[in-house]
């Protein structure tokens, strides 16, 4: 492979697209179904070229029937397929809670391991732009709450490809949640097929003063905050969790053991959210903290439409920097 190829850059959305192309070529049992798979307006360019290559038999655009379509993806998986069902807005996926939670999540257990459900339930967070409360929600914590579901939230193009492939190859239901705010990000993405272990986080930046455990889009805000904090003399270790279920407990605990301080930066709400789970994980560990845990999340408020309100609603690197400075005020 030439060095040019090695450094081939790909956007986040095209990294997903490449994962879908590669898995559909590799395995005839893989198919994609969901509302808008024909339409870039719905799914960006994540499905580019799929119909031309694999046909409408395996790339199925659907009427607005999320409950039945999600159930169909689950049922097809029970019958031996590897299904991917896409919900271009996570909010609408709520219509599919029964097949996701009652059926897919429980199926393998309640049938004593006789039938598994290799389905990827792909939901896109599509927020901002004054879209309001029903076009904005990040619901990963709800899915992470349920035994039998895995939940992944890649923040980078490299991880988006690797986790989509891992999700398709997994023998269990995997909720794959991405974010339209990430779609245009570009980085070097290998051409070959590769997967990333579900349940493994990654350290984006080494540091010694505090740990910032971040999810999805907030991993980027955390990295930006980390750079600025460095200039302020604060050394932050940034963890991009990549999966929220199972959670990479080891990477969090090892880091907090070292730094003694923790900020959790999530893209979801505060109450009962993943940030609470991570805080509880550390609180229950024998680690003696140097300062209280801080959570940076959405407030417990529906997403507003108005642009000014949106600016206060969505946290960013500045919120992280402010909290980090507070935690390190008494740094010795």
């Amino acid at each position: 492979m030439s060095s040019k190829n090695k450094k081939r850059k790909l956007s986040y959305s095209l990294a997903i697209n490449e994962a879908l192309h590669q898995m559909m070529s590799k395995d005839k049992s893989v198919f994609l179904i969901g509302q808008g798979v024909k339409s870039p307006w719905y799914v960006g360019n994540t499905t580019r070229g799929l119909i031309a290559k694999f046909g409408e038999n395996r790339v199925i655009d659907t009427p607005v029937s999320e409950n039945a379509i999600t159930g169909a993806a689950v049922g097809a998986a029970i019958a031996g397929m590897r299904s991917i069902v896409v919900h271009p807005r996570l909010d609408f996926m709520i219509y599919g809670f029964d097949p996701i939670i009652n059926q897919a999540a429980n199926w393998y257990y309640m049938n004593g391991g006789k039938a598994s459900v290799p389905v990827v339930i792909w939901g896109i967070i599509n927020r901002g732009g004054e879209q309001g409360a029903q076009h904005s929600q990040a619901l990963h914590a709800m899915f992470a709450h349920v035994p039998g579901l895995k939940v992944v939230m890649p923040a980078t193009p490299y991880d988006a490809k690797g986790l989509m492939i891992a999700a398709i190859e997994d023998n269990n239901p995997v909720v794959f949640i991405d974010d339209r705010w990430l779609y245009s990000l570009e980085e070097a993405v290998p051409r070959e097929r590769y997967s990333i272990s579900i349940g493994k986080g990654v350290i984006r930046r080494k540091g010694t003063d505090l740990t910032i455990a971040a999810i999805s889009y907030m991993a980027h805000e955390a990295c930006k905050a980390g750079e600025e904090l460095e200039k302020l003399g604060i050394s932050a270790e940034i963890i991009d969790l990549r999966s929220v279920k199972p959670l990479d407990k080891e990477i969090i605990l090892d880091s907090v053991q070292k730094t003694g301080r923790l900020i959790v930066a999530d893209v979801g709400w505060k109450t009962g959210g993943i940030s609470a789970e991570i805080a509880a994980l550390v609180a229950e560990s024998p680690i003696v903290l140097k300062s209280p845990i801080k959570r940076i999340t959405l407030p417990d408020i529906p997403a507003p439409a108005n642009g000014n309100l949106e600016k206060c609603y969505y946290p960013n690197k500045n919120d992280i920097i402010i909290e980090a400075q507070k935690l390190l005020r008494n740094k010795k």
Partner: protein
Amino acid sequence: MIYSKSILRSIYYTLLQIRLCEESLIAPISNGEVKCPVHLCTGQEAVAAGVCAALSPTDYVFGNHRSHGHFLAHGGTIKELIAEVYCKETGCSRGRGGSMHLCKPATGMLGSAPIVAGTISLALGSALASAICQDKKVTVSFFGDGATGEGVLYESFNFAALKKLPIIFACENNLYSTHMSIRECRANGTIYKSGLPFSVPSFRVDGNDVLAVFAVAKKAALACRSGKGPVFIEFMTYRFRGHVGADDNVQGVHTDIRPKKEIAGWFKKDPIRRFERYLLNGVFGKAELLKIKEQVDAEINDAFNFALKSPCPQESDLGKYVFKK
């Protein structure tokens, strides 16, 4: 219509398996030996037996909460069923599911679940899988009249018709949605017509006439296999027992509010007695039928011995089967 002796014998055998199996559970339910909720299908046997007789052994079936009959009619054994009702490790779902979660993928019995209408979309999915793979399999989705109150049925009708999926929507109308008369649930009494606005060919059949059930299911399966798309069939039937348990003992008290006269009327339409009358009219002698019954009795006896002797799932295995490796 002339049927071969072997198919008639096989249908009778399935009917008896279901009936005798269900009735054998009355005592252990009543004395508390069986603890998990059991929804008996006594009285409705002809639907499962007739529909599944029309399927090939690799076709797919999804059931609901009342699925002992579907399981036995589509490849499940009495042994695996009774052991599961006792929640034993040797049950079809290894004691993790109980009576409401019966599954045997090897024979196409893909599963059953009590979320009303919850398996309809799953069946839509196995039919979709067959359409994608062009494997010529047919899926049957069994559900009750109560499930017609759930929106997913209509989404599924539409999508199945749109994509011409090989699925038979089989509604067992036993006239009651748990405690409630279907007349109190619906503005009209013509469930089968609900498929029509979605361009799903729809039929209503006497669900206590096993040969009529068999005939309509054969036609429907043929239509599915030849790419014509879904069929909806409403089978009129009645459960002889309550919604759950031996009678309608919701909350532990007898609450069967069904009129006594109505129940007595349906006893006269017992699908098994009716089929026996047909068989005794020149197909089999009494002795032959008795022999089949003795065979089923012996199977049930063995199944109870097997279930009672079987181990419970180990406590150390509590977390097994959450995820497949």
